């Protein structure tokens, strides 16, 4: 009896999930864009915000008649693969994309995955947009990866400089999870701080990724009494806990991070204790968001019930792919053409007020244009919302 019930449930789930896939009655030819990233498990929030912002944008484009590339108007289809944050799965995901004939893929979300998919992407002519910072991915001879956001070695110096000059910060402490991404970010953050002449009072303390209670971890850090506490590569889940523990231990200084955070999460889990927390965001703060950004947020919220502020930075990758293809329609199945266009491509940034431009940057960090120019928006959390602290550019 019970077994039969389970079976029906499984069949129902199967049927349910197949229907929306086949229901896309497209008149336009379909352009598939891939996503390989983590949408389940502890880091699910990272990939989910990617995937959902892509799906929101694709649905929006399709609803308004498609995207014009050259003489053809395409409907956009997002093909997502959950790599479970496992580099071995990420390779399988990239193979899947190659199999589907996809040439433009967003993701993976972490260092090891981004490194592991490189051989597949290069062998199959795929340009991919990782959210991972290691420089070897983007410097020659590597040429198929395009950094999808601002790296912490670019945003860190800007933030530290601002805090040093405007807030009189003299001493810094770093804390990071003992995993590749956060540790690498801590090391480059430390270099940046030292280059600015700040005194690093603590950079050795690490925590296990699965830590839920940070009081014991933070106790020795807080003892060093820094002016600024940097949470290197912190996940949105850990950030509010770290802030809360630090404040409750009596820490009075500033807290910052170079990763994107979500206001709702901070509001719920840290409340007023998170006031003054500095993080890197995209363009959805009221001061700089364009009407298109506002509509994007509204559509996202409609589609998935709740917006995620991390998507502010993640909305860009798909936009860049499409805009670059529109600039050079030959690139649609030829990534070499895409690479050439990257050197000269320029288009207005639709998500920001003013005359900000979309273009490829990264020459000073990687020696070639292998990064999308996302505005470096530094936010501060105040009474449940993000406010823009300052906006900078990366070259």
């Amino acid at each position, binding site marked *: 009896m*019970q077994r039969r019930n389970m079976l029906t449930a499984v069949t129902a789930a199967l049927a349910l999930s197949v229907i929306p896939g086949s229901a896309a009655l497209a008149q336009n030819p379909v352009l598939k864009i891939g996503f390989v990233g983590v*949408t*389940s*498990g*502890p*880091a*699910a*929030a990272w990939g*989910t915000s990617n995937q959902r912002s892509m799906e929101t944008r694709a649905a929006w484009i399709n609803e308004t008649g498609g995207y014009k590339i050259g003489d053809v108007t395409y409907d956009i289809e997002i093909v997502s693969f959950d790599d479970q944050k496992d580099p071995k799965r990420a390779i399988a995901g990239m193979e899947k994309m190659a199999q589907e004939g996809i040439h433009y893929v967003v993701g993976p979300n972490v260092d090891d995955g981004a490194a592991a998919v490189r051989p597949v992407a290069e062998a199959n002519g795929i340009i991919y947009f990782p959210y991972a910072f290691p420089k070897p991915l983007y410097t020659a001879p590597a040429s198929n990866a395009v950094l999808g956001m601002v790296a912490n070695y670019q945003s860190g110096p800007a933030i530290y400089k601002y805090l040093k000059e405007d807030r009189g910060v003299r001493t810094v402490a770093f804390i990071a999870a*003992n995993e590749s991404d956060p*540790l690498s970010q801590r090391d480059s953050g430390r270099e940046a701080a030292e280059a600015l002449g700040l005194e690093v009072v603590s*950079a*050795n*303390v*690490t925590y*296990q*990724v*699965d830590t*839920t*209670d940070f*009081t*014991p*971890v933070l*106790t*020795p*850090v807080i003892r060093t009494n820094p002016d600024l506490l940097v949470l290197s590569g912190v996940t*949105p*889940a850990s950030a*509010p*806990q770290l802030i809360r523990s630090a404040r*409750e*231990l*009596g820490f009075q200084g500033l807290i910052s991070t170079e990763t994107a955070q*979500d206001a*709702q*999460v901070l509001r*719920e*889990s*840290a*409340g007023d204790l998170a006031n003054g927390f500095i993080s890197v965001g995209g363009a959805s703060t009221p001061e700089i968001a364009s009407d298109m950004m506002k509509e994007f947020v509204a559509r996202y919220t409609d589609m998935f019930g*709740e917006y*995620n502020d991390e998507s502010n930075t993640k909305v860009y990758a798909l936009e860049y792919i499409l805009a670059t293809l529109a600039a050079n329609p030959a690139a649609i199945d030829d990534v070499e053409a895409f690479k050439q266009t990257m050197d000269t491509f320029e288009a207005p940034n639709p998500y920001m007020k003013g005359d900000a431009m979309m273009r490829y940057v990264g020459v000073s960090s990687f020696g070639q244009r292998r990064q999308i120019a996302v505005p470096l928006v530094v936010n501060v959390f105040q009474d449940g919302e993000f406010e823009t602290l300052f906006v900078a550019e990366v070259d």
Partner: protein
Amino acid sequence: MEQVIVNGVYLGSQYAMIALGLTLIFALMNVLNFAHGQMYVIGGFVTYTFYGQFGLPFVLALLMSCVTLAVLGALIEKFLFGPVIRRSAREESTMLLAAGIAFLLDAVILLVFGEKQRGVPKIVDGVFNWDFRIIIPYDRILICFLAILSIVAFISYMQFTRTGRALRAIAQDRVAAELMGVNVNRYSMIGFALGAMLAGLVGGLLVTITGVNLGMGGPTSIKAFMMVMIGGAGVISGAILGGFILGMLEAVGLAVLSQYGDITYLAIFVALMIFLAIRPQGLMGKPWG
């Protein structure tokens, strides 16, 4: 140093409660319940929903967590673990089932509660600060107190009630208990429900401090295994001791070794391995589990 000890005691009381449910299930059925952490997460999300979202009183939300998990535990035992244990040739095979259930609960949590970190309003505001030597927020004191209270209540339940006696009899010797007229199947179900309920209770309690997200399940299970092993598998007092020891080890380890940086946890884990190699049955366990 005072702060370190307070941190350790507080962490220990959390850990002990998590380990308690796991060890109870292990003692009764020889099942290493990989899904324990997921049950804890569900407990947290239920309390989040009722207390954080619907605004019901915290105690009521906590009760809902307990009830939900007790029912879930009973169903899992009756329809999944029970039949599989009866039919499998090697009892370790239940580990696969436990892992399957862990995956299933993870999938359900993701679909129902989403991927974001969730938190609830503080139940008590304010921070106890003794001259900056001991700093501990009042809500932590309260949760620590509640955790210890639940542990005491659980132990007295096991000691003094008929059900408790039956459960202990099964844990000691399943066959003998059956021969003495204990309805083993029924009490296995009750025991499993009780263990799951403990996971739900601690999930509900801790959501007020650590919040909850879907990724906490797996690591929590693994941490709970460690405590159970330190104390001795299947021994209630061992699990409690194991929880407190791991809490202390982490607090002291972090304080003493913090200047050595990245190797803090390496040292803690290596110490754990050496300890287990020297004393394979844990502190209070029966040898050879």
